[in-house]
């Protein structure tokens, strides 16, 4: 049955000591979906995963799995398996015994175990590694063993807790593609936790953006990117220029001292709003043709495009363009109506500012590399 709900979290709240980690969280996950929980460290995404795996009991709320309430059910009785952040392979067992572990505790027959282990090792391209000691394997190979070990139990849902965090960039990209193809081939639900927005956008059917124990937005990667719900989502997913604006009427918004056509309606007249313009949607023209005029203050070459910071009456915009500009030049900027996205004001409004403290060094510092818990 398509569109069957496999996991349903209802009004989940969790407190660690006095800190509220999850606040009244509601989330439904459909069967065979690739769902990603995305958010910064400490947003509650790993906690959510641990609740589904059974390692953590929520203080309040219901965990429903395949239509049954499973609060209090210990992890070994749940039909989910987890890929742990640092693999958590059994160091005293070889590759074969690691993959066979789940089947052995279920007392499956020797022949069945042998077949399944071979099938799983083929799936993750580790055929011939059966007798190898897990500690002699590279990070990527250990990761594959962890995947084979979890999938060997035919889980209905696979939980992945930042599984690629410890791998280098190139390997991470390869594994993303591979995980996605494994998910499609086996047709099981993946619930994936990451703080890497690119990873989330490229792999998922559905992205759940979290911050501060609250779901900020649920949607397809395209929705999340193009129609962010609030300033947090806009800022966390990709680069964005977030400006204060006023809705003058339906389809008319004013910001940076100019009125623009837009595609959004349904706001109050003169309602204060947040306006998002993605850096790649700004069109650079000569200063006389532009709806907006500004001065270039910094240009960084990034291979595919230049990242250009433009000072517009004190607010620094980021623009991505394939054409180089010179620092100090005055240029004009045009924005199409469909490049403007209007959001209601939220607690996140005004928190992110402009790109005035942006520099190459800062760019490197802000690359996410933190680990949760």
């Amino acid at each position, binding site marked *: 049955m398509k569109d069957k709900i496999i996991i349903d979290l209802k009004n989940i709240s969790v407190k660690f000591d006095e800190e509220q980690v999850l606040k009244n969280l509601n989330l439904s996950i459909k069967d065979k979906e690739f769902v990603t929980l995305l958010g910064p460290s400490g947003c509650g995404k790993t906690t959510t995963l641990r609740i589904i*795996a*059974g*390692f953590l009991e929520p203080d309040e709320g219901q965990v429903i799995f395949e239509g049954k309430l499973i609060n209090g059910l*210990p*992890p*070994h009785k749940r039909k*989910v*398996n*987890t890929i*742990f*952040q*640092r693999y*958590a*392979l*059994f*160091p*005293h067992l070889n590759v074969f015994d690691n993959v066979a*572990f*789940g089947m*052995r*505790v*279920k007392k499956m027959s020797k022949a069945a175990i042998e077949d399944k282990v071979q099938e799983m090792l083929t799936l993750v391209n580790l055929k011939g590694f059966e007798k190898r000691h897990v500690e002699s394997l590279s990070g990527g190979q250990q990761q594959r063993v962890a995947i084979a*070990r*979890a999938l060997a*139990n035919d889980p209905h849902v696979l939980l992945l807790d930042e599984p690629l965090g410890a791998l280098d960039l190139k390997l991470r990209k390869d594994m993303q593609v591979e995980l996605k193809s494994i998910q499609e081939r086996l047709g099981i639900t993946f619930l994936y936790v990451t703080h890497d927005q690119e990873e989330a956008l490229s792999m998922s059917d559905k992205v759940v953006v979290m911050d501060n124990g609250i779901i900020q937005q649920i949607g397809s990667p395209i929705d999340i990117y193009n129609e962010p719900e609030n300033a947090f989502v806009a800022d966390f997913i990709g680069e964005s220029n977030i400006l204060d604006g006023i809705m003058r009427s339906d389809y008319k918004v004013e910001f940076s001292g100019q009125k623009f056509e837009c595609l959004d309606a349904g706001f109050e007249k003169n309602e204060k709003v947040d306006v998002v313009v993605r850096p790649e949607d700004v069109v650079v023209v000569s200063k006389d043709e532009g709806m907006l005029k500004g001065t270039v203050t910094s240009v960084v070459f990034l291979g595919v495009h230049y990242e250009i910071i433009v000072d517009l009456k004190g607010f620094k915009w980021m623009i991505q363009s394939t054409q180089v500009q010179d620092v100090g030049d005055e240029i004009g900027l045009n924005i199409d109506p469909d490049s403007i996205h209007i959001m209601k004001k939220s607690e996140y409004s005004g928190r992110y500012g402009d790109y005035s403290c942006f520099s190459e060094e800062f760019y490197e510092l802000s690359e996410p590399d933190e680990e949760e818990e």
Partner: protein
Amino acid sequence: MIKKTSPGYKAVVSPYLLWSILFVIAPMFFVAYYSFTGSDGAWTLENILALGKYTPTFVRSIWHGLLATLICLFLAFPLSYFISKTSANTQRTMVALVMLPMWMNFLIRTYSWMTILQDTGLINSMLAKVGLGPFQMLNTRGAVILGMTYNFLPYMILPLYSVMSKLDQSVIEAAQDLGGNRYQVLRRVIIPLSMPGIASGLTMVFVPSVSTFYISQKLGGGSFDLIGDVIERQFQQAYNYNLGAAISLVLMVLILISMAFLNKYSDSGGGVVV
């Protein structure tokens, strides 16, 4: 890195080398030397050949040592696991409590057990109040094993705790996640991963238990001769250093064999942690 042949390396290493020669190798050499010589200093196999009549004592010592060691293991394993799962502060306190008796003199601890166990001792006088007893507890086999267990238990707990506190919690969670119930997780993951600690705990309890003489004298009341008692008598009363050394040598060899055996079976975890 310092080259092994550089003068600096030699200078740094020499004090330890000297120490080992003076206090480890030389005493062993003397033990071996005395074992194979008579009181006149001439080479002989007499001492070794005379050991046959001590076979029952050897067997008794090893048997009681083993019993005490196994009891220690069964007591220490759950306790160490429990300690390793508590908060960092509780762990420190509990480990300190485990070590606390070790700061008191070994003889005093054994004497205290005498006063607790004797016919007019603490336990029997309490039992008398409810009209029971007195039971003979001192000078029994049980008292000797109790003495060994009590005195050497910390040597089992500490290595077990030190291995268990480093167990990766996510590995245990992975075992649960893959369908293991409590018993399966214990048998298939926690015990195998604790093997280095188990092995060193077994060694550290078995060796002193098998060679003790004081516990068997005080709590066994002399009715109960262990090999340590025989060695002690040879040195202290009979002044037969040669026979004493021969018994020590054989005991040492037996202990080395049992340690090698243990090491072989705990190799997967990376050898004995002391």
